[in-house]
Every structure is written in C-alpha cells, then in structure tokens.
C-alpha cells in the first residue's frame, strides 16, 4: 500500500455517514527496527475532515507549532479535522469504511 492510496480518500462510517476525506496520516515511531533509521514509523491514526485545509498547512497540529497570523487561522478554523484510529478502519477500497465509534 502507498500513502497516496490513503490520502484524499473519502471516509464513511459503517452506517454510511460521510466523515470527509483523509488529509493526513499520523505516524508513531514504535514499529520493528529498520536499519540505520531505528524503529519504524507506524500508522497510528488517519486525519479526516471535510475541507480541512488547515491540517495540510500545519494549523491543526497537536503541538500547535503554527499559530499566526490571526486572519489565516480564523479563515481555516471553520473546519476542524478529526483523528480516526487505525484500529477503527474496517475496509480500504474506493472509500475507507470505519466503525461507528470513530464518529461520536
């Protein structure tokens, strides 16, 4: 599988609710050892939202490294993305189907 096969795909819940598109993938470095690099980066969550451009620009990051300018943040703040854990994914095809508890 390639990252590009996840990015931009539509995500729906088992009951058919549309959550939006995949805007990013959150990785955690706790996989098996890989040569010089060390522990592999494991896919932990997918970040899903409707038109959540803020994510790609860095405004949605957990550590809040990008703050200003106020104007840009206000324009982008309208659309927040949600983090869906990998374990909630049921099927990856044309659409990505996730469990209902991923969308409270």
């Amino acid at each position, binding site marked *: 599988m390639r990252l590009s096969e996840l990015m*931009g795909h539509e995500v729906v819940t088992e009951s058919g609710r549309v959550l939006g598109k995949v805007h990013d993938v959150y990785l955690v470095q706790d996989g098996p050892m890989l040569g010089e690099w060390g522990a592999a980066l494991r896919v932990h969550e997918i970040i899903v939202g409707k038109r959540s451009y803020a994510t790609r620009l860095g405004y949605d990051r957990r550590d809040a490294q990008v703050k200003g300018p106020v104007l840009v943040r206000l324009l982008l703040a309208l659309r927040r993305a949600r983090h869906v854990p990998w374990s909630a994914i049921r099927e990856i095809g044309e659409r990505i189907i996730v469990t209902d508890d991923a969308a409270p």
Partner: protein
Amino acid sequence: MGTAPGVARLAGLVVACLLCASCIKTISPARTTHTYLRKAAHTAEVVVSAVETARLVAKSAGDGKAFGPYTSVMLSEQEEQAGQAQDTFESVQPPNARSDKVRDHLGTLLNKVSDQLSALRIAARRGELDKLSRLARPLRELSKKLNKFIENPE
C-alpha cells in the same frame, strides 16, 4: 488538495482570456460617427507623442547632447510609431460623409508629419545632427494643430 482540476480549468480559462485580450487590439470597424471621431482622436494622440518625442530628440542632438546612434534609433522609432498609427487609422472605414471630412483633415496632417519625421530620420542616419534642429522646426506647428484636432476633431 482536491481542488486541483478546478484550478487547472481556471488556468486554461485565464490563458484563453489572455489570448482574446491580445487579439482585441486589431482594428474593429467604426459604426457611428462618434466612434470614428474617437478613433481619429486616439490616432492623433499617438502621433503627437511621436512628434513631441522627435522634437526633444532633435533638440538634444542639435545641442550636441545626444550620440548619433541613440538619435538615429529614437527618430526611426518615432517615424515607425507615427506611420503605424496612420496605417491603422486609414484602414478604418469612415461611416458617412461627415467622417470623410475628418479623415481628409487628419490625413493631411499625418502626411505632413510623416514627411518631416522621415527627413529627420534620414539626416540622423547620415550623421548630420546639426541639421536636426532646423528640420524639426515645422513639427512644432504640426503638433499644435494635432492637439487642436484632439480637442475638437471636427
């Protein structure tokens, strides 16, 4: 981001618009006396610009302030500029008898300008910079007449 195809289409549209915009420049027919007069006035404006530039260049060169190559390039350029404006104007169809008169009047002026600018260019090419001031003298009167024409094209 999923907007890319839309942006690509927009970019295509922009390029198409630009192509159109650059084509619009070509002459369009004059349907009424009013548009004809406007075109005539615009032509006169372009020619005044060329005439006044030529006068300044001739004056500088005559006073020993400009080099031969510069003078010669600039004067040829003005001759060409005025010539192009004249050609464009003459290819516009005058809509009625009233515009014929305007056409004749401006045409006479433009011909005189063209003769003087050619004389200047020829002298400059030959390196006879000292003659330029004298040759440019009639342009002053022509420029005044053209300005009068711009204010009242009839």
